[in-house]
């Protein structure tokens, strides 16, 4: 399988949410190069070309990581920390996705270098709107520096 040219890495443990997110991005014309991983561990394998992703070209970085905060095994915060503390990877924009703004994690995410933070709205119209705006902003307008 070819994982090169992946523009958006979606890290989302909820298949339902993932499908809604992918649908919103598709409707915005942004899903042709999206890859979905289902937890933090797989996300790290993908990013660092380990495990099933060992054969991936480690010089090809996604242009955007959509990272769910609350996931089993390795949380979004841990993934964020690894990405932002790696000099090669830290310029990849990471947008945190979460179901709520209740957690104590918002400030921590920004402190660790998250580029944006969105609370997934219940209302699907708003949800689609938010995902679409994020995708457009970080992919189309905010080109990564490398």
């Amino acid at each position, binding site marked *: 399988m070819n994982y090169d040219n992946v523009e958006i890495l979606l890290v989302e443990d*909820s298949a*339902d*949410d993932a499908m*809604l997110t992918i*649908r919103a991005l598709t409707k915005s014309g942004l899903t042709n190069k999206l890859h979905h991983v289902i937890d933090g561990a797989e996300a790290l394998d993908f990013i660092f070309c380990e495990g099933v992703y060992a054969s991936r070209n480690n010089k090809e970085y996604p242009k955007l990581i959509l990272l769910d905060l*609350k996931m089993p095994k390795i949380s979004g915060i841990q993934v964020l920390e690894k990405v932002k503390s790696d000099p090669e990877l830290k310029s990849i924009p990471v947008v945190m996705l*979460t*179901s*709520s*703004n*209740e*957690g*104590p994690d918002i400030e921590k995410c920004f402190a660790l270098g998250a580029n944006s933070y969105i609370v*997934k*709205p*219940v*209302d*699907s*119209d708003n*949800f689609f709107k938010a995902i679409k705006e994020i995708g457009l902003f970080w992919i189309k307008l905010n080109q990564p520096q490398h």
Partner: protein
Amino acid sequence: MKKNDSDELIIAYKELAFQHQEKENRAAELIIANKELIFQNEEKESRAAELIIANKELAFQNEEKEHRAAELIIANKELAFQNEEKEHRAAELIIANKELAFQNEEKENRAAELAIANIELAFQNKEKEKRAEELFIANQELKQAEDDIRKLNDELEQKVIERTAQLEAVNKELGSFSYSVSHDLRAPIRAINGYTKILQEDYADKFDADGVKVLNTIIRNSKKMGELIDDLLAFSKLGRKEVKVSEIDMTDLVKLVREELLYEDGDNIPEFDVKILPPAQGDKSLIKQVWINLISNAIKYSRKKIKTTVEINAYEQDDLIVYYVKDAGAGFDMQYYDKLFGVFQRLHSQEEFEGTGIGLAIVQKIIDRHKGTVWAESKLNEGTCFYFSLPKTKPLN
């Protein structure tokens, strides 16, 4: 001759005889006396010689005596002087004596007084010892009481620490509970809403009119549930949120809120008459929420009036600043006033005016946390005025 003459001659003879005799006697006696006198004379002459000698002796003695007398006079004078001196001295001594006697008396008086005072002191001393003993006992009791209080205090402090820890634990638990509720409840509702939306968008042709209505109802209700969850969480978060007090420029804040709200809501916006408002002290983000809720309420309930004005102003009353938002909108019946600030309490139907009924409960909680009060006056179909007061001084907590 007569006889008598003869007799008288006899008698005179006799008398002459006798006198003769007598003279002879007398002569004899005189001879003897003479002899005696001669002897006496002799005696007297030897006596005179003796007397001369004695006289000389006496003269010498006399002279001696005169010397002695002169000396005695001098001695006498001396003695008289000394006597006088002694009298003076005696007088002085008498005075001194009297003085001493007086002093003595005084001293005796004083001694008597001292003796009384001494007795008094001894009594007082005893009293003091008694008192000291009492004080010692009282002191011990006090110490005991103090120890007890300290012990109680320590226990209380311990209890406070335990209770605080419990409260902190409960608070933390509530926090994670809220987090779970918001995170885990929202996710399925989002799925319901989102997937129904997909049905509506991608499979609309497979549903008849009733089916579309059902889909709309699902979407509307799931959206509503999401709002309710969000509102409830926002409300519960208020009680836990720390109030960060700062100086707030209320005129600026109201302007900002109004601009944000007018940007969101499009149709039939009322006119605003915003006066210059006195600054307040409070948590800016919380007070902003108060203005958002009150102003959006005013806009919402003015919507069905053709052209109305919302007045925002403030006045000072004692130690309070009272801010108010007055609309000429739908108003409400004051007999339901007690429900106005209740959580999820609404005085209008969803169809009439949308809303979850949390806005005013949030306003009340925020103002409570600022040690202020919120209240309202309204008349159905004429409009409502919401007031909130904030203390002029820095709120505690």
